[in-house]
């Protein structure tokens, strides 16, 4: 399987392990994106001026590349949403676990119906941005997070697990399965096909970030009307959501059994929303919102 990396990565220890499952072709940073002919896999100290500089460089092109970009450890802990040019927050946190849960979204990785993996993980992602495909078992924070700001964007996949590592803390079979699963998914990702297949039929143009914001507001602030959702999204997250998008999101809430439609109103299923937002790694936001709203109410 052919992949692209930067020439700065050629002599890294991780490359030795990567070569066992793929054929990396190393490109000078100036050759990106024109020279890219396979997924771009970034790991180790891939940018000479450090991770933050690297992210800023990546933000301008990651979502327009012809192939997905995979970002593997190490990460700098803290907020990365802004560096990546995202509208919503995305945070990198330190975790220490080797117990990962595989969510149904990770079906594309062909993990032989495994629901749990033992792969040592040092970083996890939180915030309304992205779609969690694997989570840390204890914290439920996203460990593999798919960022795709628009349906037309090329995905950027963040993975906080040590995929290119010889650590005995990982089960080697699980590590290899996840590594190969991610690389194969990225290599076979096709922009045109994805655009047709990926969007749920009920909400063909809803961005993941918007969807997450609506979920947080529904679960945390019990926002169930269109106007309430738009105004809270603006005041709390600084995000402008169109009327059409909120309607699509509300349709999806109903479609996912996270709410029921009674006449024109939405009756939220808070218990289901709690579980769903926890699974997406959004629980911290929901909880914070709830606390704020409870304080205001008392």
């Amino acid at each position, binding site marked *: 399987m052919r992949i692209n990396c930067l020439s700065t990565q050629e002599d890294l220890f991780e490359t030795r392990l990567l070569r066992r499952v793929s054929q990396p072709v190393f490109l000078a940073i100036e050759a990106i994106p024109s020279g890219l002919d396979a997924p771009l896999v970034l790991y180790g100290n891939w940018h000479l001026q450090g991770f933050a500089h690297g992210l800023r460089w990546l933000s301008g092109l990651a979502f327009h590349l012809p192939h997905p970009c995979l970002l593997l450890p190490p990460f700098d802990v803290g907020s990365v949403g802004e560096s990546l040019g995202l509208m919503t927050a995305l945070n990198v946190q*330190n975790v220490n676990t080797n117990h990962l849960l595989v969510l149904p979204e990770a079906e594309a990785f062909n993990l032989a119906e495994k629901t749990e993996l033992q792969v040592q993980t040092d970083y996890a992602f939180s915030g309304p941005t992205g779609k969690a495909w694997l989570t840390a078992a204890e914290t439920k924070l996203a460990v593999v997070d798919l960022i795709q700001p628009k349906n037309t964007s090329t995905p950027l996949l963040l993975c906080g697990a040590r995929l290119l590592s*010889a650590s*005995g803390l990982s089960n080697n079979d699980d590590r*290899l399965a996840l590594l190969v699963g991610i690389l194969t998914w990225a290599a076979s990702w096709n922009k045109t096909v994805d655009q047709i297949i990926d969007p749920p039929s009920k909400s063909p143009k809803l961005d993941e970030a918007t969807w997450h914001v609506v979920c947080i507001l529904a679960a945390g602030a019990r926002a169930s009307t269109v106007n309430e959702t738009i105004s809270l999204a603006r005041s709390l997250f600084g995000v402008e959501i169109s009327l059409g998008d909120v309607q699509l999101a509300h349709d999806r809430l109903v479609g996912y059994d996270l709410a029921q439609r009674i006449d024109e109103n939405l009756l939220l299923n808070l218990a289901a929303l709690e579980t769903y937002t926890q699974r997406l790694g959004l629980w911290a936001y929901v909880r914070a919102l709830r606390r704020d709203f409870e304080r205001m109410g008392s």
Partner: protein
Amino acid sequence: MAANQAPTLIREIQDIFPSRATELEKSYLSMAANHLKQAEGLAEQMQYSFIESGDLSPEAMIALVKTLYEFEQLVKKICPLDPNRPFSLTPEQIKTYQDSYAQRSLWEKVHFLIWLRTQYIERQNQLLSDLESQLDEAASYKQIQGKPFPTAPITQVLRLIQNEVQAPVTGGTQTSMGWLQIPEYPQKISQYFLVNQYVDGWKRLEKLESFVSKTSPSSLWLRFIRQVDLWKNIVNQYQQAKQAWDQLNDFMQDAPENAKTGMSDLGKEYQAVEDFVNGGLEHEIQSQIASKPGLQLMNALEAEVKAGEKYQGLAGQISQLLEQIRQGLRQKINAKRLEALNHVLRATGKPEKLAPQGKSTYQQTIDAYEGFNTEVEQQGKNMFEGQKKLTNWELWVQIYRMLDEGKFTLKPEHDANVNELVQMGLLERKISLKR
């Protein structure tokens, strides 16, 4: 003399207790001059004439004692301590002095701070010398039995301690390296000293000493060396596994792919330990230096090394697989036909034919066993055919098998063959009473 001694002593403590020194210099020296003046005034006021005159009026006596007491109190505040009794404390007394500092006399304050400074510098020097030698020694563990081993878990912490202990308390440039995080005493020693928390500063110093000690229960060196020893075991295990794996590979070099399927799982396991030992552990730890400062990196090393113990027994498993493959190949020798031949050879007084040992590769072994089977067949045929015998080699093998398995029943058409085989000494008849 005292007036000259005090400023000298105060200047001595300026490097470690700058605020205290300034405080003493500014207020207490002038106060001492005042106290001295007041004491002189009191001395002048004292009247002893009533004692000499024998008129011991209680009022005069009370006034004299009172003035004497005030005089003594004033003098105590400014009088140097007895030079014949060296000022010495135990570490436990630091708290007493810290708590009662404000109430202490000028001289007690000065002597206490000088004592603390001297003790600190003495211990600081010892600590720095221990740190230096441990850092040197740690560098010699970068390779253990030819395999890279991470020394950062100990050197990072030692350097943090070194950085804290050797940095000047005031002035100079502090590096941005930071200092070792100890939950009970989170500030640097110098910071504790600057805010007059001598007990906490001292406790932190003792804590750092216990980390640097090579024998204390919290010794970093002991923790590090324990990991070195465990790592040696892992490297040994790997070297045995490598030897077994090389033997297996050498043997299987000419084997068909379908014969290698059993090697796949062990191969992955072997590759994992090979990566782990050949730079993997070092890489794991190096990549965690930024995210796991201080003692966390030592915890990470311990976790990684412990996890590496799972490869124990891999060499045995590989050798076992090779043995299984060899045993499997041995099944290719037609054992029953060899036994049938050897039965004939024994009866004719000839030496038995022995199966060959396995060869050095899979295919060579198969070739040897198949060649041997052909020899057995040829020799077997030679024993019967061309010698005007009724029984041929194939029939003998059949009869031998049946007898061996206890399934032989004499058929009339084999009667002549059995007689012949008895004559050849291969079979014997038993006669018994019919019941």
